[in-house]
């Protein structure tokens, strides 16, 4: 086990190294490079541009720049934002709570609804409910999140006027929980739809596999009540492989959150990323790419470890 852990951590470190290399070359090999934003300004003289390039260290060879960035990254110095000179790590951590709230609430709703729909679908396979649920799940996986958000705003904020069209809370008002929750409904619901679809599909597939197992037939045969078989015997085992889904889903949830935050002017990391692209704010972009990739790698590692811990049949070696 310890050996497995060591190997996985090492692998994760290698992957993160590659991630940083990929991200860094991506941003720095782009036409114009990091200084492009200054070059676009009409008041910028050529010598000023040279000076800025020198001051930012952008005239050095790429590998020197990368190494100095990597050293800083490892020691917690992620550079300063080009936009307002604040520390990148600070800029990012400011946005983490809003994204966390959004993703966690969408996740909770999605897991609960997805499990329920998946269980019913599996128990009543090929029933009308099953056909409807699986088809709806496929449509939900195919709807562009931004459009779903727009339609949500149109129906609930403009036609029915029951929910606010955006923002994390009423502008200018003091913090209040009901107000925050009221603002959370539409964004979390929008982000949750794709996740519900994935969870119900996986739950259904996993349950179907378990239901056919011999020990379920045995439970039925010895007279265990139907509900008890499903919830006590089948569900427990069907849930085990779903643990890894939480980790696997993370990149897509970050993507969905970015779009959702943009539509609902939600002050999270995704919106920060979109804004930073507009400003060509390379240090922040690089920081966000690394930060999200780090969370994805860690998420998958944790999911795999939990999977090994709760399923005695899985030997992690």
């Amino acid at each position, binding site marked *: 086990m310890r050996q497995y852990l060591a190997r996985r951590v090492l692998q994760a470190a290698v992957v993160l190294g590659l991630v940083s290399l990929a991200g860094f070359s991506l941003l720095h090999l782009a036409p114009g490079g990091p200084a492009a934003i200054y070059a676009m300004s009409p008041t910028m003289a050529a010598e000023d541009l040279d000076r800025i390039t020198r001051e930012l260290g952008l005239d050095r060879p790429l590998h020197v720049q990368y190494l100095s960035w990597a050293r800083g990254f490892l020691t917690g110095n992620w550079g300063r934002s080009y936009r307002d000179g604040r520390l990148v790590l600070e800029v990012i951590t400011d946005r983490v709570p809003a994204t966390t709230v959004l993703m966690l609430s969408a996740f909770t709703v999605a897991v609960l609804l997805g499990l329920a729909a998946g269980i019913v679908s599996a128990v009543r396979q090929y029933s009308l409910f099953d056909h409807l649920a699986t088809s709806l799940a496929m449509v939900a996986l195919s709807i562009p999140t931004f459009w779903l958000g727009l339609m949500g705003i149109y129906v609930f904020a403009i036609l029915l006027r029951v929910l606010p069209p955006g923002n994390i809370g009423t502008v200018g008002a003091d913090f209040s929980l009901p107000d925050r929750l009221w603002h959370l409904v539409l964004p979390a619901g929008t982000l949750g739809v794709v996740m519900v679809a994935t969870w119900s599909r996986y739950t259904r597939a996993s349950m179907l596999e378990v239901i056919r197992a011999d020990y379920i037939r045995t439970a039925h045969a010895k007279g265990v009540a139907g509900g008890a078989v499903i919830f006590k015997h089948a569900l427990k085992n069907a849930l085990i492989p779903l643990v890894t889904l939480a980790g696997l889903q993370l*990149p897509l949830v970050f993507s969905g959150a970015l779009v959702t935050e943009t539509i609902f002017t939600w002050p999270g990391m995704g919106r920060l990323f979109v804004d930073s692209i507009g400003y060509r704010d390379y240090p922040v972009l690089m920081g966000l790419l690394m930060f999200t990739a780090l969370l994805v790698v860690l998420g998958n590692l944790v999911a795999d470890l939990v999977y090994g811990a709760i399923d005695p049949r899985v030997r992690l070696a």
Partner: protein
Amino acid sequence: MSVAHALDQPMAPARPERLSRIVLSRFLRHRPAVVSAVVILLLGLSAALAGHLGLGDPLHIQMSHRFAPPLAKGHLLGADELGRDVLSRLLHAGRISLTVGLAAMAVTVVIGAALGTVSAYFRGMVDAALQRLTDAMLSFPPIYMLLALAAFVRPSLGSMTAIIAATSWMDIARMVRGQMLSLREQEFVVGARGLGASGARIMAHHLLPNTVGIIAVAATLSVARAILLESYISFLGYGIQPPLASWGNMLNNAQSYFASAPWVAIFPGVMITLAVTSFNFLGDGLRDALDPRHVESRG
């Protein structure tokens, strides 16, 4: 009639059913997939014939028709903020979106199949390196990666196709690699090796053809993914640029016109959903038809 042929006659009914017919009949049993195939055909036709349906120029600006509602002033689906015909724009946008979807799929398949094959063939260090690269690429949230790429290149059909493919090949590479690793241990490959076939010949003639099924399924699903990704990037303003219409960029300013002209926001999204759902269902149906062992579709 030769003797051999005569002997052949009574044998005919015993001949096993042809594989293609089995696959076809299994596919036809998947009703959503059949409907989707028809929808895709119609979408393709309407996009191809967009200029010949008498719908008018999708770029023709007519301020007197600004925000004409559906069915008014000769606009079946209404007009947008510049009085352009929404239906005509939808069909022309379909050309762009479907082209990007199909082209990105083709490039994705080539990259994925090539890297997967190389991984499975060389194994060892090459495989380990490619696997870690795949892990790294899978660690980026796709939209983050795409936006970062799209923002720094001049947007065009070609560049959109390239960056979507550059960030989508990982799944196919993984699947092709896995399939090949298991195939190469099977008897027919051992047999071919015993007959003296070279490594490259075994790869090209014995292994790759056996991955066509899973590649076809993955390719279909990757069209859906590419159409969706193109719409995200274009919606955020870094994809196909106006006045050229794509389903994504038709929604650019939709949020500002909600109250007065909801149809401008509704129809492009319907088209995206329709196209993406159809390709997803088609992929599902193909999987059921091509892989008899696969009972339930997952993720």
